[in-house]
């Protein structure tokens, strides 16, 4: 099961216009771990996520998924084991119907028609969206879109789930449903988020990013109790913990 | 200006369908060969952008009217001619199906008029030549405006040709041209200005976006020769089909230019409506066919005897139309060849 390990070694990335995305980042995430990536706007969360499946190739350092470093050669294998859910579901759902969208990944992996169909149905069932199968994406609500977006990734059965702001723009009920769903997954999960309450519910470990560097890495509950650290990183104690005096 | 099903004959619609289909096939083939597959979503989303952007109008001061950006030129500048043509074609298809702009049979005409001229004539021959490889604010502005105007003028001229050759409308050639071209000159200037301003905005905030289309590599990257061969072939087919059509159905090609000669004397009961209409007609008929008056009595008699009137001028006018199209094609051919020799 060694290929479920995510490891960053001294990772750095600078954008073409000169802004630093991330700076000398190192961490190791083992199989089945659920990790929250928190930090203020512009801390480098999204940049880091894009390295996880080779959307960006590091300028310095190395990103390893399992045993192989992420590079042009390993791209296909990496993308098969790392499933990425984007922040804006409209960007992720580009096909004419929900079925086509969920089937997009499996078809590109070269699966046969029957297998594709089976996977689509199973993925939609998992996220509780089976009834949406023939709908066009523009007719879905925000919560439904997010569920289907997650299904599109599940259909290729990745080992590692990477999510960018999964709870953004969701109403409280949809958000709660999503948290239950995430907790039911046994995948390794890496979730970038501003929703610290969700991080508290879903992730046992948290990495705090600040200006492209890691300022803390440890158990979620410990970090969120460290008010000085949170304030320094442009964050605030989750609401769920504020009531406790 | 969208061509409508109601105004064209099946022959014209069919020929333009073939021409547009050929171009779509050509561009699709080119797109398949393209290594950079990021253009696939880009084209779709920009097509949707054109749609949405054309719903936002700005007020033209002191006229009470409004304008919006043009489609073809901005697409060509952002995507290059092949991708732009496909995108424009898809925009027009959606418009035809959902908003009944044009129609199914006229779709070929519309794709050709509004896609071919900006993407394959105005963009490579005017915009690129003016802007060249060192874009500057002034060059982009001039290039985009002139190219938009020329593209639209050619498109409008084709609308006139297609309508006249179809013979459903009775507008005389001269009147039609004088009616359509100046209006489209005004529209072209407004659209060109808006297009140029938006392109400049993008160029100023993110110059790298316009780079791939302005660089020398892109110039050599596509060959206009293939497109041109296709166009010449299409026009030849058009010419042949039309002359066949002209001989088979003479009244289908009636050019009202010749018909108007006899109209004056044939006017119906002299009631108020008709006489006021006649004054109106005199106002709009800038170039009525009065020069042909010598034959008027003759044609009058003939028309009165048998209907539909077999006008002696018809086959003549078919010939003129065919020749005109061919001349235009040849002209474009010569210009392109000339340009090729320079590059």
């Amino acid at each position, binding site marked *: 099961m060694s290929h479920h390990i995510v490891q960053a070694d001294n990772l750095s990335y600078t954008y073409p216009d000169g802004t630093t995305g991330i700076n000398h980042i190192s961490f190791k995430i083992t199989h089945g771990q659920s990790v929250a990536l928190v930090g203020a706007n512009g801390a480098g969360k999204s940049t880091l996520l894009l390295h996880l499946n080779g959307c960006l190739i590091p300028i310095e350092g190395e990103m390893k998924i399992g045993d192989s470093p992420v590079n042009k050669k390993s791209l296909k294998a990496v993308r098969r084991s790392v499933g990425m859910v984007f922040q804006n579901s409209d*960007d992720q759902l580009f096909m004419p119907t929900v079925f086509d969208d969920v089937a997009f990944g499996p078809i590109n992996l070269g699966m046969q028609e029957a297998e594709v169909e089976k996977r689509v149905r199973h993925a939609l069932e998992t996220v509780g969206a089976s009834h949406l199968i023939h709908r066009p994406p523009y007719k879905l609500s925000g919560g439904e879109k997010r569920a289907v977006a997650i299904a599109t990734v599940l259909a290729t059965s990745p080992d590692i789930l990477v999510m960018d702001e999964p709870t953004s723009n969701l109403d409280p009920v949809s958000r709660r449903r999503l948290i239950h769903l995430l907790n039911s997954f046994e995948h390794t999960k890496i979730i970038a988020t501003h929703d610290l309450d969700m991080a508290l519910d879903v992730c046992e470990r948290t990495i705090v990013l600040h200006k492209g560097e890691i300022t803390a890495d440890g158990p979620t509950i410990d970090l969120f109790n460290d008010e000085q650290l949170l304030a320094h990183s442009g964050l605030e104690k989750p609401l769920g913990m504020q009531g406790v005096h | 200006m969208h061509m*409508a099903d109601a105004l064209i004959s099946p022959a014209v619609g069919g020929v333009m369908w073939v021409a547009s289909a050929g171009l779509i096939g050509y561009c*699709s083939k080119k797109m398949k060969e393209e290594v950079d*597959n990021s253009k696939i979503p880009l084209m779709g989303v920009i097509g949707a952008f054109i749609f*949405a952007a054309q719903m936002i109008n700005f007020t033209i001061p002191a006229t009470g009217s409004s304008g919006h950006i043009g489609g073809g030129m901005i697409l060509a500048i952002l995507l290059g001619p092949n991708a732009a043509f496909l995108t424009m074609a*898809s925009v027009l298809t959606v418009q035809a*199906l959902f908003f009944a702009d044009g*129609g199914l049979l006229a779709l070929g005409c519309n794709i050709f008029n509004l896609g071919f001229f900006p993407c394959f004539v105005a963009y490579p021959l005017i915009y690129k030549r003016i802007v060249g490889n060192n874009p500057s604010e002034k060059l982009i502005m001039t290039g985009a405006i002139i190219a938009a105007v020329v593209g639209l003028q050619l498109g409008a001229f084709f609308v006139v040709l297609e309508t006249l050759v179809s*013979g459903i409308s009775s507008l005389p050639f001269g009147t039609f041209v004088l009616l359509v071209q100046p209006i489209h000159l005004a529209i072209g200037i407004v659209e060109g200005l808006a297009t140029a301003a938006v392109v400049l905005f993008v160029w100023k905030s993110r110059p790298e976006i316009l780079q791939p289309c302005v660089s020398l590599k892109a110039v050599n990257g596509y060959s206009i020769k293939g497109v041109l061969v296709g166009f010449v072939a299409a026009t030849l087919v058009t010419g042949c089909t039309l002359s066949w059509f002209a001989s088979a159905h003479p009244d289908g090609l009636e050019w009202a230019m010749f018909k108007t000669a006899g109209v004056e004397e044939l006017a119906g009961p002299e009631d108020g409506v008709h006489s006021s209409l006649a004054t109106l007609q005199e106002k709009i008929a800038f170039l009525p066919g009065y020069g042909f008056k010598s034959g008027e009595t003759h044609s009058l008699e003939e028309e009165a005897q048998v209907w539909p009137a077999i006008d002696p001028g018809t086959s003549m006018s078919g010939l003129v139309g065919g020749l005109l199209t061919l001349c235009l094609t040849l002209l474009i051919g010569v210009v392109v060849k000339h340009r090729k020799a320079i590059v």
Partner: protein
Amino acid sequence: MRERFTGARLFICPGYIKDMATFEKNLFDIGYMDTLALGTTGLHRLDPRAKLITTLIFVTMVVSLGKYEISMMVPFVIYPLAMIVSGELPFGYLFKKILLVAPFAILIGIFNPLLDRQALVQIGSMSISGGWISFFSIMIRFGLTVGAALVLISLTGFNSVCMGLEKLGVPRPFVVQLLFLYRYLFVLIDEASRMARARSLRAFGSGRMQFKIFVPLIGQLLLRTLDRAQRIHLAMCCRGFDGYISMNRTMKFGFKEIRFTLAWSLLFLCFRSHNIPLEMGELIGGYLR
């Protein structure tokens, strides 16, 4: 609901609300026609290719009629009407949509009565000129062809029409392009309307969109669009996109489809070759005599 909102405000509010109304109306229109396509009648279930081919034959036949042959056009009305009735489509809505685009046809057609004033038909002491006849023929042709296109979309849905086109041999990049355009039409019209609304709310009643505001607004929209295209491409690549988009649709051109296409085409041919209203009139006239 939405329609009522747009309709009611169209005339009483300043320009910016009208802008909004057009946006919402357009979105609503497209969405509504797709909803119609979700119907379950036999016509809805027919293979899209059958409807596509029949519509094309219909349009060609109608357009091929001479410009004075109004009487021969009349029987063709049966096709869109039959589709509307047995497809359970809302007649009033489609009719309004046709009227909405009529001005263009009127604009071109209206010159015919002015220019072509040769008397063609004599009814009692009143004579009708060829120009008026051809004007009405333009209007009828217009109604028929536009109606046929609207019926096609309402019975089939845009996506299925595209899939049908692909099976009929339309190049794949073009079909993919159509599907992408359609998918993001909704997203972008929504985005454009939000931007226009933000502007108009700060314009405090002066509904005019000045050019110097128009340009950055459209420019921003374009930049956002380009960013979005990049993100979509990333999302595609993450799921193994390598330049080829596959869409599996099992379509069956079976007995029903053949019957539909053949029967209608034969009927159209019959309408085209025989002047049925005239023959019927003569028949009845002869009988009366």
